[in-house]
């Protein structure tokens, strides 16, 4: 039995049998040409030799080892694991979209450019900003672009001494990392007891060397900062610019526009809010939206609509003072098509319902769970709720174990130990596409685990019990890195 199961997970190179093929290629239909000097050619290449049936069976079996949105409730906080509509993938793979080259002249790809232009416009409308660029390939790259715009803005104004970037302590790791990549000195701003930005600390740091501040709204605590307008004002007063990390826009669609609150620049995570399947870790898209002041700095390219002899056409242009290009092409076009399809499907009315339901679902969980799990900030949350397993820790069961135990109940775990500022954090984001029945089952499971923590703590500590593998030894993986298949010595001798 184990033999068969082990067999299913055997690596491709271990399955490889000399002489097997997985594809038939066309024979050469032109006269064979002279090959170059043999010195330039490689002698061997270690790739698997397997058949097509084996490839299909191997990857199909592997896929079943995953939890996913299509199979499980996946309340991974900060990740917006919502349903990914199948129509989005279908249209993105139309030959007219999937089969065009990024370097074709504009006149050959007007349909593609038109979609990009609409997406730019929709994002501008949704964020209340003035302009956008779809170039960044993920949220983190959007952040980098945003910060580089801030940087170039200051530089062009001769304000090159502004080297400090403020970032709340609850921020996602990409924020400080992006700021650092742009060469900024990162200063952390604490969260106050209400879960808002600590205004005192902010005032202290809002000095003349301030370049700006990156604020996630709602914050990664799932809270809408009650003084956000004041925060932006303070930053501006100090001569800095306010950056909004819009990865959590799922909470705010149609409820409020970032541009109205005082932000100068922001990015969106299309793969989250606008529902591109997360693909096991990408692709994403992280468009940036800006106020007029920053428009000339947008990353290249952007799409412009032109009227010529009464005919409309679309063309790619490089913004005047662009911070440059961040990839070889124009952005993750396939993701943009999905976002376009999603926005059109839901429309103005549907987008507003997204945030309403996402926030309602999160608060429903909050209300039902706060008796059993410590709620660090006892006020209504936005689209996600941060709980703490510190009460459970008192019984000897920590947050990680609580999370792993959820896997046994058939739920993906929440985000663990993030935000870093909350002990034993469990960040739970149900999203709007989950039903009340599912939420009720999840609540039941969370309560059952709490009870297990009291009655049978070892059951929880040993979790998970029902997954394809049990708890994995991460320390060993880091201590003795084994990062790729390698031919065993004796095989080498024979080969």
């Amino acid at each position, binding site marked *: 039995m184990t033999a068969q199961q082990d067999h299913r*997970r055997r*690596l491709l*190179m271990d399955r490889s049998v000399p002489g097997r093929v997985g594809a038939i290629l*066309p024979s050469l*239909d*032109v*006269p064979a040409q002279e090959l170059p000097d043999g010195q*330039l050619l*490689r002698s061997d*290449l*270690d790739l698997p030799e397997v058949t097509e049936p084996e490839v299909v069976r191997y*990857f199909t079996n592997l*896929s079943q080892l*995953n939890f*996913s949105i299509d199979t499980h409730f996946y309340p991974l906080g900060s990740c917006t*694991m919502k349903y990914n*509509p199948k129509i989005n*993938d279908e*249209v993105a*793979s139309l030959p*007219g979209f999937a089969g065009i*080259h990024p370097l074709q002249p504009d006149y050959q*790809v*007007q*349909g*593609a450019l038109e979609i990009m232009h609409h997406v730019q416009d929709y994002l501008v409308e949704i964020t209340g900003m003035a302009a956008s660029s779809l170039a960044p*390939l*993920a949220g*983190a*790259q959007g952040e980098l672009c945003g910060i580089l715009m801030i940087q170039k803005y200051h530089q062009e104004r001769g304000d090159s001494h502004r080297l400090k970037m403020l970032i709340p302590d609850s921020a996602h*790791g990409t924020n400080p*990392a992006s*700021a*650092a990549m742009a060469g900024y000195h*990162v200063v952390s701003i604490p969260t106050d007891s209400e879960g808002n930005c600590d205004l005192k600390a902010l005032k202290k740091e809002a000095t003349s060397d301030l370049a700006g501040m990156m604020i996630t709204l709602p914050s990664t605590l799932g809270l809408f900062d009650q003084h*956000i307008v004041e925060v932006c004002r303070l930053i501006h007063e100090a001569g800095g610019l306010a950056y909004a990390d819009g990865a959590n826009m799922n909470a705010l669609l149609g409820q409020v526009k970032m541009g*109205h609150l005082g932000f100068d620049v922001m990015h969106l995570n299309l793969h989250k809010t606008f529902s591109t399947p997360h693909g096991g870790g*990408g*692709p994403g898209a992280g468009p940036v939206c800006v106020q007029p002041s920053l428009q000339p700095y947008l990353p290249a390219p952007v799409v412009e609509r032109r009227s010529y002899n009464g005919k409309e056409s679309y063309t790619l242009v490089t913004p005047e003072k662009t911070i*440059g*290009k*961040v990839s*070889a*092409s124009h952005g993750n*076009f396939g*993701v943009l098509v999905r976002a376009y399809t999603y926005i*059109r*499907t839901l429309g103005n009315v*549907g987008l507003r319902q997204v945030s309403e*339901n996402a926030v309602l679902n999160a608060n*429903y969980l909050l209300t039902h769970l706060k008796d059993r799990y410590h709620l660090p900030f006892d006020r209504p949350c*936005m689209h996600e709720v941060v709980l703490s397993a510190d009460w459970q820790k008192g019984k000897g069961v920590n947050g990680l174990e609580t999370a792993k135990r959820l896997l046994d109940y058939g739920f*993906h775990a929440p985000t*663990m130990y993030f935000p870093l500022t909350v002990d034993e954090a469990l960040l739970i984001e149900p999203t709007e*596409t989950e039903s*009340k029945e599912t939420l009720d089952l999840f609540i039941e499971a969370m309560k059952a685990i709490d009870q297990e923590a009291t009655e049978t703590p070892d059951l929880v500590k040993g979790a998970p019990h029902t997954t394809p593998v049990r708890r*994995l030894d991460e320390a060993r993986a880091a201590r003795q890195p084994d*990062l*790729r*298949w390698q031919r065993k010595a004796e095989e080498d001798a024979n080969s």
Partner: protein
Amino acid sequence: MQTTSDNAFQSHYMPNTPQERAEMLRVLGLDSVEDLFADIPQEYRNPALSIPPPMSELELKAELEALAKTNHDTKSYASFLGAGVYNHFIPSLVSPLINRGEFLTSYTPYQAEASQGTLQVAYEFQTMVCNLMGMEVANDGMYEGASSLAEAALMACRITGRGDICVLDTVSPTYRQVVETYARPQGLQVHVLEARNPHLPEGAACLLAQYPNYFGYLEDLASHKVATHERDALLVVSTDPIATGMFRPPGDYGADIVTGEGQGMGVPMSFGGPYVGLFATRSEYIRQMPGRIVGKTVDTDGKTGYVLTLQTREQHIRRERATSNICTSQALLALAATITLATLGKRGLRQVAELCYHKAHYAASLISRVTGYSLPLKGTFFKEMVVKCPTSPTVINERLLESSIIGGLDISHIMPDCMLLCVTEMNTRQEIEALVGALSEFSR
């Protein structure tokens, strides 16, 4: 019929019905969903949203199909456009496999026990990238080729503790732009060197080369390696993985970091993305590597399993001291590449590379015989070549389109009247000869 008035609209994506919303609000002790947004200052609440109303799948699909048809795609046109993005064969099994919900709709495998599928694929991918490149370690993928090269440059600066990045003038101009974007803010200098005879300045951190280079020709990596070694700098090579199916890989020449664009391995061109960046290096540098890395380990029962590892390099742990800010990457495309390489296998990848080689050289031999055309560059090229034309390539391309041909890239701004032409296994002899026929019309 569906109406679009706010109250009546019930989306097919969201389960909560008005009754259920009311019920849930009762549990919360609230009157209206509005109350949940009380933290938003009143004056900014509920802004007008000028987005079209909801649309049915049927209508939207028809509209998008019509829009898609306005583009000139490779199903209707023979394409000779490359320059970093290629029309390569994608086996039929790739799409049904990567579109399996379990792969498609999962996320970064933070919960290893519930993500062994994604994790094992990553381990396979890392193995393949190492083998293709001739390197010791690889990560689970980057955004795409250009930013991978840029991140490699940053990594070289971190390793050497130096700030001068040298890049050959045969590296893609776009890639060089992206390197600039990433390097400049950190105060790093980018120097463009002549590929024929690159003189690295004292204290250079690295030399960035492309192999085959932007113009399609093999770079002399052996001598570049010597030049970088002399300066104790690192040799960073951006490569086309398909080329490594037949040519010696950069690792063989002693490259220190090898990056690449993985698009050619099973990923459609999709007007520029999503693609997947490749990134490999020597074991000794692993802790300076950006990106996600998956390692093999065992579970509490001693069973083999895979986990994210060496995460202390990454932003979610190390924050401003991370080796990169990358978080969401391009895992699904890495999966596509893994499946494609598994399918092509050892023999298939070589066949693809050789088909490209022979067809490109056949095209070159025909074109160079047409009056007015020539191949100005010498050396060994793989599937791309520079063709000097009798007139503006842009003009020629407009004419080619009428013959259902998408021509090569106009690089007149680099080499007057020159076109960068690409031929892959997807181009039939008939297409090649039709191209040559159409080009001849411009001969003088």
